[in-house]
């Protein structure tokens, strides 16, 4: 428990400003989509930006900040702006959850540790966050093996930590798998060139688009991403 807390505290401090190159693969209903290169930026507690690259520039640029989402598809000159993303996405605090998922900074409240139990060599800790239930399974090394968010309506988001980078001193998740069982989607991310800074780079966290960009709905963006093979 002490090792887990110490490592989470260390990652929380680093997640204030982290960037990494990602290789990503999406698997939908067992079918693997083509992989893509991306850049991930985190600014804990609740800001992030993910840019997926095409051969000659950005294919998709997505930013989360609190409960707002911005997405921009440069090649189509289309953009999406959601100011209440949790309602549209069906996930409470989407930015906060995604930052915690990518930085492995799941922080159980004090009382949850009292109910923690060992199972299959993992210490399992469960707690409630509003209507959701959060579980984290911790290995003997003090690192999370997986975390799970069970949302009110039954959707389960599972994050598996399959590899860690120790190049910068502490452990940082370098091989992360996100699984949405409800939609049968699995996203595998491998991070390289992991870098930390003392403060967030505000300019590089912002998703912007030029004048003349056509706004689209979330449904239209999803359809477009489906055609591109991202979803």
């Amino acid at each position, binding site marked *: 428990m002490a090792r887990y807390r110490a490592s989470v505290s260390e990652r929380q401090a680093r997640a204030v400003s982290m960037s990494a190159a990602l*290789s990503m*693969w999406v698997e939908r209903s067992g079918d*693997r*989509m*083509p*992989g*893509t*290169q991306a850049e991930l930026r985190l600014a804990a507690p609740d800001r992030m930006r993910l*840019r997926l*690259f*095409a*051969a*000659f*520039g*950005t*294919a998709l640029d997505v930013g989360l900040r609190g409960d707002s989402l911005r997405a921009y598809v*440069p*090649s*189509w*000159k289309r953009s999406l702006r959601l100011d209440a993303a949790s309602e549209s996405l069906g996930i409470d605090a989407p930015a906060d959850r995604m930052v915690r998922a990518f930085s492995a900074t799941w922080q159980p409240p004090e009382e949850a540790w009292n109910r923690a139990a060992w199972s299959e060599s993992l210490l399992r800790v469960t707690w409630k966050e509003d209507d959701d239930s959060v579980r984290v399974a911790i290995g003997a090394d003090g690192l999370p093996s997986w975390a799970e968010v069970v949302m009110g309506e039954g959707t389960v988001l599972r994050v598996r930590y399959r590899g860690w980078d120790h190049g910068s001193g502490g452990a940082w998740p370098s091989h992360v798998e996100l699984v949405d069982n409800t939609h049968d989607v699995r996203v595998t991310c491998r991070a390289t060139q992991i870098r930390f800074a003392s403060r967030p780079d505000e*300019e*590089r966290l912002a998703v*912007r*688009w*030029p004048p003349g*960009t056509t706004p689209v709905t979330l449904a239209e963006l999803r359809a477009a991403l489906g*055609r*591109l*093979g991202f979803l």
Partner: protein
Amino acid sequence: MIRGGALVALLAVFGVTPSFAASTPLTSVSTLMKKLEASGRGEVTMTQTVISEGETLRADRGKLSLEPPDRMRVDFKSGERVTMRADGGEWMQPSLRQLLILRPEQAQAVVSTWRAFLDGGRDSYRETARGSRKYRLIPISPDESSADSIEVELGTDRLPRRLQLWIGDQRWWLTLSSWAFAKPKGATAFTLRAPSGYSVFEWP
């Protein structure tokens, strides 16, 4: 992703086709077109930089090969390769250990843009001289896959030396050196095969 305007614009700027003679050529690429028509193949060393809001998204070196009327190949130093033909194309990505197959209709979409440019010439792009060897091209009927504008700078040999494309907020910068022309190698030189251990995907 192939719809990214830069690739389309690259084909558009460098294209050449026998039917070209019937149209009015753009001054900025007329020397290149003549040389490609005469030899059948052109190669050039390229440096590519993609910039957005002052941030460099990509910086690569490589070689660009062209064979009229519809073949293009880019070999990046990183090992990444892209080929395009009328009957399809491939994109090899060693970092992802995958080969993406471009279907003929997808390649045709790109090639048709190329041909529209070539057949249209001045009917497709408004060309403005911005100095003795600099030209700006603006698509007359822009669509979502076209560059907003293209700037072509020629060397003393009248061959393209620098290209800048603006696509939305992205600026795509290409520096070209050591143009060489030779006999064409044919379609097999523009076809990629997946090495052992690579995943092969149809382009979505």
